[in-house]
């Protein structure tokens, strides 16, 4: 069965979703989804180990070899992403039971978990595949599930948020489709490795350049890079807590992964950074994005919205890393993809717990939380420290690598911008922590969140600390992945 590992990761949600849609009541679909996500996590960890031991893992779908059929091509980068997605799913799903029943209502639970499984399926599908068109198909699976899940939020503004995401997301996906079409017409293939092989010969044509522009723009819409981020804050603010936790931690990361795959593997470093001004475009956007989004998030009264803007800022760090076009920068970027998933997952889960007890997520609801809900509050403090980038947390590890990468290139202003972003993070996290410690509780009778929410939440918080102290695992994998990506896609 070890030879089929990548398919097993996909199969778990694929078979689970239709079954879950037929189950009744809130508990059975939840149980099914949780067990399946654990199974998928197990498979993806095994996959990572296997990739570590044997190198790139190739699996042909239907037994048709690469350019004719669709293949899975799993190297360190996908394996890492896969562990992140399934790992967060395994934490968020146990957490979801209480919060979903609270926010959605029991009668819609089966379909809700179906949609969640489909979202996981879509994200995993994008990650494992080695075919450019297949990415589009699974992108749409995950997007459609996302639109639905966001619209499940209680606030009616969730609907408009979802709709504007639908429009932006579809435009992004269609741009991607145009780009892939242009690549296809020039090379005759859709397979990523094959594209990487055939592109250098014809890269000096206007069609390939246009393809590059369209693919990058389309994906940047999906990953909410600065001027294209307008859909994100509302979408994250108004969707149900469990959904926000999962989306905030994984959805944009997968888009980042696709961008990395195209920029480094398919087009190659020379084309992306040599022939095309990718760095010149992305670096300023990333820096403006991270500074402006951090500044905006200081002013948000709604903490969920504040964290959403902070996500836009963090996307800035990630894109900054990959836009450097060096192995160091890419390592930092991949590390931050993983680490930001951990911290944002934890923080959004905290907000879910607060919403569960207090009924809202504004800063007033956070007041005096240290007294009424100490465990939840301390989780927020630790997550916030990680967001700032305090040593011994994951946030520090990735920012440290990012700064090292910038120093390596001698980009001093960029280092200053990164540090300034951290200072802004201190302000916006500090504001909430201050309210929690010194504010008067809005309602002193509220008690600690139930264990069903606290345990998954603290698992993630501990992961934040764990990977902050024991950096070998993540840094080694990220470095290996970066080395592979820099060398191009044809590494075995």
């Amino acid at each position, binding site marked *: 069965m070890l030879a089929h590992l990548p398919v097993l990761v996909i199969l778990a949600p*694929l078979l689970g*979703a*239709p079954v879950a*849609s037929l189950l009744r009541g809130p508990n059975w679909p939840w149980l099914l989804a949780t067990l399946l996500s654990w199974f998928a996590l197990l498979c993806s960890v095994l996959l990572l180990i296997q990739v570590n031991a044997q190198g790139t893992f190739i699996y042909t*779908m*239907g037994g*048709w070899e690469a*350019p*004719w*059929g*669709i293949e899975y091509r799993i190297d360190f980068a996908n394996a890492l992403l896969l562990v992140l997605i399934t790992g967060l799913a395994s934490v968020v799903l146990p957490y979801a039971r209480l919060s979903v029943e609270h926010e959605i209502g029991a*009668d*819609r639970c089966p*379909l*809700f978990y*179906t*949609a969640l499984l*489909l979202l996981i*399926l879509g994200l995993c*599908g994008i990650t494992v595949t080695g*075919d450019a*068109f*297949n990415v589009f*198909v*699974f992108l*749409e*699976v995950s997007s*459609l*599930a996302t*639109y*639905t899940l966001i*619209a*499940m939020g209680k606030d009616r503004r969730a609907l408009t948020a979802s709709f504007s995401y639908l429009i932006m997301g579809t435009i992004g996906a269609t741009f991607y489709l*145009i780009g892939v079409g*242009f690549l*296809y*017409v*020039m*090379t*005759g*293939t*859709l397979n990523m490795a094959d594209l990487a092989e*055939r592109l250098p010969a014809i890269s000096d*044509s*206007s*069609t*390939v*350049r*246009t*393809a590059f*522009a*369209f693919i990058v723009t389309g994906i940047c819409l999906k990953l909410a890079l600065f001027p294209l981020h307008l859909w994100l804050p509302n979408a994250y603010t108004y969707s149900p807590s469990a959904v926000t936790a999962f989306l905030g931690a994984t959805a944009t990361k997968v888009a980042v992964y696709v961008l990395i795959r195209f920029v480094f593997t398919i087009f190659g470093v020379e084309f992306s950074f040599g022939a095309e001004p990718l760095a010149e475009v992305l670096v300023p956007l990333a820096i403006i994005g991270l500074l402006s989004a951090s500044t905006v998030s200081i002013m948000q009264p709604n903490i969920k919205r504040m964290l959403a803007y902070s996500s836009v800022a963090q996307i800035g760090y990630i894109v900054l890393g990959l836009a450097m076009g060096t192995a160091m920068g890419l390592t930092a970027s991949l590390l931050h993809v993983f680490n930001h998933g951990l911290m944002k997952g934890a923080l959004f889960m905290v907000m879910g717990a607060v919403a569960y007890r207090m009924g809202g997520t504004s800063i007033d609801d956070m007041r005096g939380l240290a007294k009424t809900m100490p465990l939840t509050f301390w989780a927020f403090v630790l997550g916030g420290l990680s967001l700032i980038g305090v040593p011994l947390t994951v946030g520090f590890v990735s920012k440290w690598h990012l700064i090292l990468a910038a120093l390596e290139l001698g980009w001093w202003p960029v280092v200053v911008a990164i540090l300034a972003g951290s200072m802004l993070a201190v302000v916006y996290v500090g504001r909430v922590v201050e309210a929690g410690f010194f504010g008067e509780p809005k309602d002193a009778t509220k008690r600690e969140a139930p264990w069903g929410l606290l345990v998954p939440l603290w698992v993630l918080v501990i992961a934040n600390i764990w990977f902050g102290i024991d950096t070998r695992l993540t840094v080694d994998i990220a470095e290996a992945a970066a080395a592979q990506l820099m060398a191009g896609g044809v590494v075995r």
Partner: protein
Amino acid sequence: MILEQLIDIFLLVFLAIISIAVLRIRDLFTAVMLFGIYSLTSASLFMVLDAADVGFTEAAVGAGISTILMLATISMTGREEKPLKKKGTMLPLAIVVITGATLVYGIMDLPPFGEPDNPVHTHVAPRYIEQSPQEIDVPNFVTAVLASYRGYDTLGEVVVIFTAGVGVMLLIGRRRKRKEGISNE
């Protein structure tokens, strides 16, 4: 054949006329109807370009299902579109012009239209046409590629449709009540 290409251009011009009309018309009902004939025309266009299966699907889906769903929607949301505010039209226009210019730049190096020795026709596709009679033995190459060579894509497609069904039921499905007697909410 020159005639095919002529029909192709003719139909594309029709499409352009119809789409401009859809853009300008305020009455959504008319817009949806025009969208229906837009789909029918595009389906004929697919036929002219030898894509029978695609024309089939576009006719059934675009002109059939999409149009009917849109009609059902405007029966609930009303058919008048409010006139545009003046302020918001410049930015979209700028974006559209830039995108269009990029695309025009992009087609300059395209391989010639309809030549049999384009890279598209020489690299992956020949295998589907030459080998599939021995490997799969299905006369319709589209079916062979769809269901076998790229069967995984089609699996994704089925999942997409399923997702849409789940999504629509979650969004506007009726809550579970007695099926008999159409429980009005």
